[in-house]
């Protein structure tokens, strides 16, 4: 890949604003939050982050925010990801890899259906207290 300058990046940004025909996700507040505490890092959260960017890019979804956070208290099922879609329960997925990330985008975000086998909800209350 040729080295991109800041001017080229600006032009690309402007071009994309006017040219790209984006898929309408009908909601503007979809959030994907990847856990990148020490546990998440060790378990491969960076591959998960890249997989989400790839999937969002492939589906041309603009109204999605991908963020990072620290440990969610579920170190035993890292990498963990919280997904917030309006009209659906906030969901924490665990043991997420690139394939699961793709499924979360296609099934949870686009299909409005939870991805079975990876739902871990929130940390148990005893963990939160201690």
């Amino acid at each position: 890949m040729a080295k991109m300058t800041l001017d080229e990046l600006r032009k690309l940004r402007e071009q994309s604003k006017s040219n790209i025909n984006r898929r309408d996700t009908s909601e503007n507040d979809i959030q994907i939050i990847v856990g990148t505490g020490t546990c998440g890092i060790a378990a491969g959260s960076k591959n998960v982050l890249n997989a989400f960017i790839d999937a969002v890019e492939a589906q041309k979804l603009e109204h999605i925010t991908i963020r990072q956070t620290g440990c969610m208290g579920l170190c035993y099922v890292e990498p963990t990801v919280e997904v917030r879609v309006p009209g659906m329960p906030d969901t924490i997925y665990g043991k997420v890899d690139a394939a699961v990330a793709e499924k979360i985008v296609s099934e949870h975000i686009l299909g409005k259906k939870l991805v079975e086998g990876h739902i871990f909800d929130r940390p148990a209350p005893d963990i939160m207290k201690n």
Partner: protein
Amino acid sequence: MHFRLCDYALDLVQNAVEAGAGLVVLKLVEDRTSFILGIEDNGCGMDEATRAKALDPFYTDGVKHATRKVGLGLPFVKQALDATDGSFLLDSKKGRGTILHCCFDLAHVDTPPIGDVATLVLQCMLLPGVFELQVLRSRTTEQGSSQYELSRRILQETLGDFCRGESLSMLRRFIRSQEDDLK
């Protein structure tokens, strides 16, 4: 021990941001025999007693994670450096900030591989909070030296909220192009 050197770096940059730093400087200097990871921040810093305890994996300030009893970022990197003949320097002043300097010996058989620097830089840029991150990256090989510098503030001015869909893709593409261009 983490799988890649970049994994240590992300943990430590996160520490700097969470220390309330307005400015974080990340230096990634690579040559044929060593990889230097330098992180400087102007966050809350530590007094001498806290600085000494920061290397204990069972110490945490109890502020960042009220329910946690461990703090592994610094102990992990110190352990890896001790095991691979690297060097470690941690200088901190309370209220002024912290300087961390780690030099990994790439020739040591147990030193983990460097890893994906482009994704490391992307992840550091995406950390939550209002802060400036300056990345100074260089590599020296038989073909010569090359480097690039990035500023989180300038990239945000260019792309807007780069946590959002397409801006994020462009940011990743931009950072990868800088990294791919190194000799």
